Structure formats: structure tokens, C-alpha cells
């Protein structure tokens, strides 16, 4: 039986040799001309700011946690599926009911975390949150800082627009 695995083991060894050989080969073959700026961390040509050893959002941790739980569930399903395919009808009904209970209990948890919003990656972009308009172009008031030279002309234009009162124009008139 172990003979079936021997080629796999050999393949793993060959893969390791190839991978290590590539790293060592490029290490030996390439030139070595280190310099201070070449060896600094790459931040788009700027001097690196701060450290990269930052902590990161807890979301990633939660995803890994949920992954473990569903992974265990899936690994339980594999022997079940193999057994299922080879059994008789009455046995299959029994198997099906049993696995339905197993997965059903887990799906209570799934809907709970769905309801808690664990899968909503960004709070502002939740699915039921009010979506921003899908319109590609929305007429907007020009950004102005109060020091434009031709203020009079714009005010006049704004007054024209305000004859058809919209949200945008009403804001514009008071600038």
C-alpha cells in the first residue's frame, strides 16, 4: 500500500530539489552590487515611512475562524458522500436525513453570522445599506472656494438654475 505513495514522495522530493535549485541558482548566478537605496523597502520610490509590522483588521481573523469551521464540516461530508453513492435507497434516505440535520444545525449558525454582518467586509458597503447612485454622471455644483474672480457670473448662472429647484441648485444659490 505504501508503494502507491512512494512515487508521490519522490515527486515531492523532486519538486523540493527543483525549487531549492532555482533559488540557489539565481543567488549564485546573479551579480551582487548592493547599495543602500536598492536595498530599501519599495514604496514607489519614496523613502519608506513607518514600519510594515502593523496590526491589521480583525476581519481577517474572523474569516480564518469561519473557514476552519466550514472546512471541518466539508471534511465530514467527504466520507458521507462516498458512502452515500454506494448504498441502497432506504439507506440513502436515512443518510440524507442525518446529513441534513448536521448541515442544518450549522446553517443556523451561518444565518446568524449573516445576520450579525460578519461577512460584510466594509460597514459602509453592506448589501442592505443605501447604495450610492448607479448613475455614471450626476450634475454637481462646481467646487468653489470663495476666491474666484468671476464670482458674479457664476452667481447669475446659479440663480438661473434655481428656477427649477433641485437639491443641487438649492445648495448652489447659497454659496
Amino acid at each position: 500500500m505504501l508503494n502507491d505513495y512512494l512515487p508521490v514522495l519522490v515527486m515531492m522530493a523532486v519538486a523540493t530539489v527543483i525549487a531549492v535549485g532555482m533559488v540557489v541558482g539565481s543567488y549564485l548566478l546573479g551579480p551582487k552590487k548592493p547599495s543602500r537605496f536598492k536595498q530599501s523597502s519599495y514604496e514607489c520610490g519614496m523613502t519608506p515611512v513607518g514600519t510594515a509590522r502593523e496590526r491589521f483588521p480583525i476581519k481577517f481573523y474572523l474569516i480564518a475562524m469561519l473557514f476552519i469551521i466550514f472546512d471541518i464540516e466539508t471534511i465530514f461530508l467527504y466520507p458521507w458522500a462516498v458512502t452515500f453513492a454506494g448504498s441502497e435507497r432506504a439507506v440513502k434516505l436515512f443518510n440524507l436525513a442525518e446529513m441534513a440535520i448536521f448541515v442544518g444545525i450549522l446553517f443556523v449558525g451561518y444565518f446568524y453570522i449573516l445576520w450579525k454582518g460578519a461577512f460584510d467586509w466594509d460597514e459602509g458597503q453592506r448589501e442592505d445599506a443605501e447604495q450610492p447612485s448607479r448613475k455614471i454622471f450626476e450634475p454637481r455644483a462646481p467646487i468653489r472656494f470663495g476666491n474666484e474672480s468671476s464670482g458674479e457670473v457664476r452667481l447669475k448662472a446659479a440663480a438661473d438654475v434655481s428656477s427649477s429647484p433641485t437639491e443641487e441648485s438649492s445648495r448652489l444659490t447659497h454659496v
Partner: protein
Amino acid sequence: MNTLPVQIAFYSLAALTLISAAYVVRARSIIHAGFWLLPCFVGVAGLFATLQAHFFFVAQLLIYAGAILVLILFALMLTRDAMSLHVPLKSHLGIWAGLISAGLGISASLVLARQSWSVTTAHPAGPARQAEALGEALIGLYAVPFEVASLLLLSALIGAVVLAKVERAPAPEPPPLADTLPEPEETRKEPVGVE
């Protein structure tokens, strides 16, 4: 069974597991300790393979090496300062720890040595039908523990979410835009087209 290649495989895998486990304890950076768990888990998986428990070999790789270690690494990276700090491995409890582990080791090996182990030559299920036999056992003989396991997973699921404190907090107010200068009270509206 007890052929030479199997023995060689067993001892080298055991050495891999133990040495990397020692490095997990010895590593100065906690992240390195986490990384050392990978050869440790893979070694244990290999031990399952030498025992001809092929399903457990893969399950160990998938669950421990593939999932739990990712979680451990993520958890380590979440820890404050663990990413950069190299903690000095000095502890005033070293003597006590050594004594306790030596005592535990001696008593465990005494128990193991005095136990008369019954050796079985029969395979519960041949490798060809291992997954099938496991599935049959799960839905037949061990149906109730199997369903209880799903309850355990459910509580883990809920616990994970509660611990990670995901709350349906409303989205924070967007910062005011440059073009929303102070306006008279009666016409002030929510800014449109955020960003």
C-alpha cells in the same frame, strides 16, 4: 508492515515533528514560532500516512496545516507588537517548569512501559474502503456523537462572531466635503454624491 522503508519514514517523520516542535518553543520571535508549526503539522500528517490512515493524513493536512495554522498566524499578526518584538527567552520559572515536565515525562513513560499492549493484526478497514468505512461509522454507529459535533461547531461559529465583536454599527458620518461651506439652517441638506 514493519518493513525497513516504513521504519525509516516513521523515524524521520517523528524527528521532523519533534525538532520543529522544539523550535516552536525555542523561537525568539512569536511569528517564527508560528511558522515552525507548519513542519510539525506536516510531520504528524506523515505519521498518519505511515499508519496507513490515508483519510486522516489528508484531513490533518487540510484542517491543521491548511486551516488552523492560518488562523494561528492571523491571530499572531493581530497581537500588539508581536510582529516586531523579539522576546528574551528568560524566565525565573525555568527550574519549576523543568521539574514538572521531567516528572510528567517520567510518569508517562512508566505508565507506557508497564502497560501490556494488545497487538492486533487485523485491519478495521482496508485502505481501499477507508473513507467508506468512516462514512458508514459516522452515519451508523456514531450518529449521535456526529450530530453533537455539529452543535459544537455551531457554538464555535457563534463564539467566533461574538468574540470578534461584529456589530451592526451605523456607518460613520462621511467627513464634510470641501464645497459644503456653512449654509443657512433651513436649506442644509445631506451632502450628495459622497466622494
